[in-house]
């Protein structure tokens, strides 16, 4: 347990370091963004000094770590406001979309995965594997416009983009959740099928438990464990996938903030958004591990 926390700390340190060194990749100079390329040399030097860019790289790295550890993500170059504040304003919209997408995943993956396993090789199973194959092959920046074409332009059920109208979260949530739903469904199906041959199910039947009790009480809880691992891993991927989905639907979240920051070459803001998403991902994974230990007595004994 302590080792897991220590490992997480090391990874967070590494992630912050990597995000810091992203700036080293920037061709040219962040000062160009502020002053333009034709600014006087004296002005440039003054700005460089005030931003701390004149100091050596290791010192700036150390300072960045210390700053991030205090929750300070720096100042936006373009908007002259704290990066943390800007992200904070956009975060609720992203979380709302991710939560809705997660709901889509659960609503699609759980019933379809169970149906597919119980009717193995039958029509439902084949339909489910087709859906899964499509889910892995249709990228979200194409699925989004397709859904808009069908449900907004064609049927007029949902708004084309934005977050203000009611029901506007539906299409982004499906767009974002679809591929994850497909993978989770396959995972649940195969783990249910694997468990179907286990002895304790035979024992349960021998004790006189009905088929539905065997399925719900004995098979499903165990089959869900690998699915929970997968969902935990993928919850962070939802946050990353949200970047593209937010751009498709002009959703005012952290992802579209990242793309705006990239267009404006607002490097501290880019670093801040990337860092926040990566850190959330690491923490979600930690939480998943802890949840699994709590759910699965076998893991608890190992720990």
């Amino acid at each position, binding site marked *: 347990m302590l080792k897991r926390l220590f490992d997480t700390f090391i990874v967070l340190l590494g992630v912050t370091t990597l995000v810091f060194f992203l700036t080293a990749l920037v061709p040219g100079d962040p000062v160009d963004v502020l002053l333009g390329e034709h600014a006087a040399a004296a002005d440039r030097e003054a700005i460089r000094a005030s931003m701390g860019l004149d100091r050596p790289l290791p010192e700036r790295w150390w300072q960045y770590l210390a700053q991030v550890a205090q929750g300070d993500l720096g100042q936006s170059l373009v908007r002259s406001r704290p990066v943390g504040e800007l992200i904070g304003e956009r975060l609720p919209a992203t979380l709302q979309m991710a939560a809705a997408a997660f709901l889509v995943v659960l609503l699609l993956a759980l019933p379809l995965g169970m149906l597919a396993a119980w009717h193995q090789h039958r029509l439902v199973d084949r339909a489910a594997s087709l859906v899964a194959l499509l889910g892995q092959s249709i990228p979200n920046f194409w699925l989004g416009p397709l859904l808009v074409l069908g449900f907004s332009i064609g049927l007029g059920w949902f708004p084309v983009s934005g977050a203000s109208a009611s029901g506007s979260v539906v299409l982004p949530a499906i767009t974002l959740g679809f591929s994850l739903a497909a993978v989770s469904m396959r995972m649940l199906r195969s783990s249910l099928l694997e468990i179907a041959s286990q002895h304790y199910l035979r024992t349960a039947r021998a004790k006189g438990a009905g088929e539905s009790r065997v399925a719900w009480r004995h098979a499903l809880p165990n089959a869900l464990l690998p699915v929970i691992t997968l969902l935990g891993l993928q919850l962070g991927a939802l946050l990353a996938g949200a*970047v593209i989905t937010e751009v498709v639907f002009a959703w005012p979240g952290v992802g579209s903030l990242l793309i705006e920051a990239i267009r404006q070459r607002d490097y501290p803001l880019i670093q801040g958004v990337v860092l926040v998403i990566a850190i959330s991902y690491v923490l979600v994974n930690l939480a998943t591990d802890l949840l699994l230990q709590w759910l699965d007595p076998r893991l608890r004994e190992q720990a």
Partner: protein
Amino acid sequence: MIRFAWLILITWMGMAILPLVLPMTPDRIDLKAMFVPPMHAGYLLGADELGRSLAQRLLDGAGISLLVALVSVAVSALLGTLLGTVAGYLGGWPDRIVSRLIEVFLAFPGLLLAIALAGMLGPGIGNVILALSLMGWVGFARLARNQVLSLKQRDHVLAAVALGRSQGEIMRLHLVPLLLAPLLVEASFGVAAAVIAEAGLSFLGLGVQPPQASWGSMIREGVRYLLVAPHLVLVPGIALSLVVLSVNLLGDHLRDYLDVSARGSA
């Protein structure tokens, strides 16, 4: 299914090569042909908002996606296999460093690292390849390391050690050849991921720059005209999905054929 996948892949490669031999004018603007639908006015797949031929732009995009996918997967595979094999075989501090690096890179979910890198480096096809390679090496490194960890206790490796082979020779001659099957499977899924990633970056405006066409940038530009000319989005999207689907099918097939069960699982 697998024949269908091969057919699509061969078509993809053919499409990528065609622009090299045919006289191409994918950037020619013809305002009389604006938004011409497929199979009209001599345009096989229609024309876009500037009257540029969608078929020719699709061919152009096929070349970009193939080039980016092959180069970035090749670089990732070489770099990842090298680091993973060395770390797995030597153990000790090289292994600790590589393992930590793998963990840190894995902490960036999905496309996030590629978006950040491409955003920092600026747009352009070279930067896309660089960003995807820096994102892709981790999968290969983790796979190679895990495989080597279990392979290095095999008898033939121990025999080679006893015969006094150097560490480099053992890795090159006795370990890496055994990694090829799982690496090939990983590479095929890597191609699918790279095709999606290139299109995704171009969709975000971080990939190829106009007027050059990529399937992702075609979707990006077409979305604005979804109402009047849905074929602008449908044509590149169908091409993209068919290619990704086929590469994935081929990967599944290879995995079964080569009997690779554990795909890089830790």
